[in-house]
């Protein structure tokens, strides 16, 4: 090969990377996401009892999510910063509306029925919170002063509490962590961070007091699943059996007895990771986790190359929050964390969260592909 013929010397040369960049897509990140979603579909086929109807619904959602990614990627990061307060404000009003007249499903008020479709305002907040906190903190030099830090924390805590009240503890914790990651990245001193962790740990008994019964039950079961093998502990026991019996290489696609004979509950949604572990073994889940890591790594690289502090904070938070999703889900399925009801991103069957996730990646791509056009 003629090494001098590389693209750098021939800017007019056509390449997939450049073609995608025209529509503000980052080729590496986009490819990674598509691969992950493809793997997700293969797993869902097995976890969803080979239902084609289920696959079609999931594919439709994926298409909608990719569309959302495309749209967001083409919005300039500066416009996002401008919209941060508005999005956050609208999100807060909707959250209050949900508590007032939301739609109940599975014992929780999370949905807002707008007649033509049902909308979960907490999904909007997943993006609005890091957007607002990053925008607010980046207005002034970093690291933030104590008053600004406190205002930033209030911005995080208010929606988190509203969502925890629905009650949706999983989403609430994820939103809180996406905001806290922004705060962490903004460079607050380690003393404050350590102080915060200590305070939180000592606040745990208070948390116990405000928790709902079913949440307490989950924590108790987490601590000792065998205490209630046919009730609340059933999920985690069956999940561990599924994972453990997968062994190194797994039982093979569609061959997992735990999954296919329906011992594993919620296997197409929150517990889909156990299906992967049973059917593809340690090797399979290892590969899957590496895929997640590579996607997040690309995100962190994008954050490090971003040209404004706002974009850095935002991109860093989105990438890290994505990993938090993965680790919380895997942690809960493997029995490391209590069951909090967080789906495995881009693999679990389910609607709104996929659109939000890919919209988040749209922000990353926007940050990366609008660089040259930004004022220094």
């Amino acid at each position, binding site marked *: 090969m003629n090494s001098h013929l590389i693209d750098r010397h021939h800017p007019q040369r056509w390449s997939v990377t450049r073609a995608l960049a025209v529509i503000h897509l980052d080729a590496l990140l986009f490819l990674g996401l598509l691969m992950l979603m493809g793997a997700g579909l293969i797993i869902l086929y097995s976890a969803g009892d080979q239902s084609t109807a289920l696959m079609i619904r999931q594919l439709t959602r994926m298409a909608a999510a990719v569309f959302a990614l495309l749209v967001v990627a083409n919005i300039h990061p500066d416009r996002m910063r401008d919209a941060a307060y508005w999005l956050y404000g609208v999100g807060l009003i909707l959250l209050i509306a949900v508590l007032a007249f939301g739609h109940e499903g599975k014992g929780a008020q999370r949905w807002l029925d707008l007649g033509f479709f049902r909308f979960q305002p907490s999904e909007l907040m997943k993006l609005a919170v890091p957007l607002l906190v990053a925008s607010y903190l980046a207005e*002034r*030099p*970093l*690291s933030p002063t104590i008053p600004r830090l406190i205002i930033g924390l209030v911005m995080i805590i208010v929606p988190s509490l509203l969502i925890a009240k629905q009650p949706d503890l999983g989403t609430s914790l994820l939103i809180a962590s996406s905001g806290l*990651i922004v705060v*962490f*990245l*903004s*460079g607050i001193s380690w003393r404050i961070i350590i102080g915060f962790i200590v305070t939180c740990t000592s606040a745990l008994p208070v948390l116990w007091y405000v928790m709902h019964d079913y949440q307490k039950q989950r924590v108790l079961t987490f601590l000792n699943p065998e205490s209630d093998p046919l009730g609340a502990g059933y999920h985690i026991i*069956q999940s*561990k*059996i*599924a*994972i*453990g*019996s*997968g*062994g*190194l290489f797994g039982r093979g696609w*569609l*061959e997992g*007895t*735990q999954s*296919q*004979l329906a*011992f594993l509950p919620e296997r197409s949604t929150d517990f889909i990771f156990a299906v992967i*572990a049973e059917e593809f*073994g*340690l090797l399979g*889940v*290892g590969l899957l*986790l590496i895929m997640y*890591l590579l996607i*997040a*790594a690309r995100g*962190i690289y994008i*954050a*490090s190359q971003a040209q404004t*502090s706002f974009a*850095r*904070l935002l991109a*860093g938070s989105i990438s*890290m929050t994505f*990993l938090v999703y993965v*680790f919380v889900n*895997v*942690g809960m399925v*493997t029995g*490391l964390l209590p069951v909090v009801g967080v789906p495995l991103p881009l693999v679990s069957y389910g609607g709104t969260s996929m659109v939000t996730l890919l919209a988040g990646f749209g922000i990353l791509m926007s940050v990366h592909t609008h660089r040259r056009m930004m004022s220094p």
Partner: protein
Amino acid sequence: MSTRFTLKNHSNENRLINDRLIFAALFAGLLFIIVMVRLAVLQVVEYEHFDSLSNKNRIDISPLPPQRGLIYDRNGIVLAENIPSFSLEITPENVPNLDDTLTTLAALFSVSEVDITKIRKQIKQQRRFRQFTFRQRLTEEEVAVFSVNRHTLPGVEVVGRLIRHYPQGALFAHTVGYVGRINERDQKNIDLKAYKGTQQIGKTGIEKQYESLLHGSVGYQQVETNVQGRTVRELQNVSSTSGQDLFLNLDINLQRVAAEALGEFNGAVVALVPKTGAVLAMVSKPDFDPNPFVLGISTKEYGALRDSVDMPLFNRTLRGRYPPGSTLKPFVALAGLELGLVTEQTKSFCPGWFSLPGQDHRYRCWKKHGHGHVDLKSSISQSCDVYFYDLANALGIDRLHSFLDFFDFGHRTGIDIPSESKGLSPSREWKRASRNQTWYPGETVISGIGQGFNQTTPIQLAHATAILAMRGINVRPQVARAIRKSGQSELELIEKELAESLPMEDSQHWEAVIDSMVDVVHGTRGTARHIGKNIPFKIAGKTGTAQVFGIKQDEKYDAETLAKKLHDHALFIAFAPADNPEIVVAVVAENGGSGSRTAAPIARKVIDQYFGISPSE
């Protein structure tokens, strides 16, 4: 705020954030390691433990499918039953060496090498813990052969099931219908939970109509099984409830006689009790054996049935649409009397043809040289066409159509068998809506003798005749008579509401038309006079001959030169006794040529059987 704070040191901030990003990435790496260690502990270190737990984890909840209700005729003779059938099932997971097992099975059951290769491929494609059906409907001998060799065939077992069987074969194929494998379309319409373990569902006829009654409700058995999948002990048992037995109005003897009387003709015979609507016989020919459909008919066999020009799968009694021909005349006559256009005494002259005023098109009577002077009675008994051309023209299509509505022409009779056709009773509105054409007076003329657009199904003909026989009382035809709940001995009659009777200005009108129909069978010049002998009561009837093939003006219908497929359909409607009707019969013999020669004798045989009259000849 002073400007001092708004100044940003970009390189400083960048370094600060990047340091934190690196820290975050390292933290993520740490989490990854923790999770991988956790997974390795579960999947490698504790693999044996969880693997054995997984294998023990076989608390099977197996459904106990209910026994389908039986179907009997009115004499208590079984029309649909459940018989045990054995199949050979392979559970691939429990077979140590699939190739050896298949070779042994091939030798035992003399299966060809090609089929074994196919079966091996199918087994490889499905999941290993699911049972694979090697062979269905094992004979006793085959079961014995397997039992002797069972010890050499781990993972293979004989499974007994009850399957639907129709002991009467083709005789009730269209009426009772059949069950078949639940397909994807069925799955959309049923509660999947209620059908767990059930493999068959009613597809046609009574089996489909009364599916919910016949099916019963599913039970459950919770068992603990070992690694091989064999039941160790039963934990819980909720038994199933059998479906309800169904007793039909159909009479197997009458059905058999009707089918035999129809002989080689394609067509239909319907017999019912006009007072109650009870359907006594329903024959559609040609027919087919419903039994192969139960476990899934082979594509080849099905293709042959589907593509046959005689259409054996087509239920002619409910879906066959035939021009009623002259069998419509009594109803048209009644319309004329009721609307005051004719009286019993009104005479009309038949020169052998009829023309609309101002037109030279000749509508011909079947009798070339005409009937001469005819009145209502002779025009029905001799089936004069000209009288009815004239009457229909005087009535007009609007009045004729709305009068025929009373007899449910163009409407479903509401019989308790699915997918009945509505037939067609033409009207001005229908023609505008379906063809976007105006109605021509000539079309009214031929409607008067049941030709043109008119189409009726055999059940419609029988139903309309029953309304006539009952002097206006409209009773919905009904096949099912009673149900018997499982475990009970007494029958529960299926109730149904009587429709209101048709109001008539003068009840003498009914008698006038019925008298004319008696004359068809018993009059000296009646078109069906040859079936009126050796009978202790009077039969009222009407012959009909429906054109399949249009004969041009001035051309003669010649049966000899026409292909059989183009021969006229032969029709006959009748009820007996005329003054106190107990049975109504409608016959359609496709390409039978003549209603009087072909269809009427078939109806007579059915009536003879019903009243126990020994054949006259």
